[in-house]
């Protein structure tokens, strides 16, 4: 019974949070305005598209998939250096 109660509380959590935000008159939790896309980030997106293009030319489905994952890793590294690195 205890665990059922906890599970229900957890399921209700998003509703509670949304309700509290509305009642509190706070701004949305995620700002509406898109992130500032700096030149470095634009380059990251371009690199990703180029990388996906190269991945698509792999012979087998598995190789294309693995190459696509590597593209995402490169993109993540590029993006985090542009916007997370301090």
């Amino acid at each position, binding site marked *: 019974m205890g665990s059922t109660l906890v599970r229900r509380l957890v399921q209700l959590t998003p509703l509670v*949070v949304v309700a509290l935000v509305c009642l509190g008159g*706070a*701004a949305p939790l995620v*700002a509406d*305005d898109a992130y500032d896309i*700096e030149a*470095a980030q634009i380059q990251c997106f371009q690199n990703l598209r180029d990388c996906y293009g190269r991945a698509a030319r792999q012979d087998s489905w598995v190789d294309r998939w693995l190459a696509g994952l590597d593209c995402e890793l490169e993109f*993540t590294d590029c993006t*985090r250096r542009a*916007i997370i690195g301090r």
Partner: protein
Amino acid sequence: MLHVVIAIFLTTLLPADTRLDVSPLTPPRIVSDALIVGRAACPTVTWLLNDATQLISVDSSAAVAARAVRGFAAGERPWGLACLPDGTLRTMATPRSLVSIDPSGMTHERIAVPLPRTALFAAGDRLLFQSSPIAVGAAALASSPPRQPMAARPWPGLIVRGASRREDEITRNLVLCGVPSGREVPCWFEPDAQISISDGQTVRVVAVTALYDGPIARSAPLQDVALAPGRVWLLLTGGRDGDRPSGRRLVAVSERGGDRWSADLNPPARLILSATAERCLLLATDGSIVSAVVTR
């Protein structure tokens, strides 16, 4: 595992801020301007790893020492830094390779991980990390013992959100974690103003949207976060300094009672180095170490 979510909203209904007493502890350019790719807060010293592969220590008296990290292979671009209770440090030499670093800067043990990791932090005696590829609806972070990467378990709190394009999905779900207190680690999605604080068992959520006034950026407003007993320190982003975001305002909030202290920072700060309930050390954009103290 018990997941309890408590939403704490820092609203403008709180009493007016009391000023933090901010003062420089060192001259400028004590710390290199190179991009910081990892920060690990140990109990007595904070370590920084930069992309010039320097390991920098800053202690509570603002004494700074830098040494070159030796042992990375050509082409390796380390990311992340975690301090474990035994004082050893871990970083990711590559997304698939964890490396330990000793305080002299020498790399030692290398451990291959089954799934590539894209972010690395510490949570008590476990490593806290984000894996790739991300999956919408799954926990954004997981933890594992340092030498047992297969023994990973989800870290409660942040859940991966979807987006219309894969690249936006990756960008929206980049995770940052701040300075922990005990077993509690504050983490957030880079674009968001909501912090998930967890010890691996319970979660509480702190939303800081109401602090957006003045020079604070509406998107990605959290430059850094630090926890101390009963206190949350927030470094709020106020635009960019050169090509990097910089923290223009520091806010300290008492989790009980709602007391709040703040100061606008000039020069702005790159990150928080360490924090207690009464005092916070910051790295400023001019390379100096700055202290902020709660006044009574």
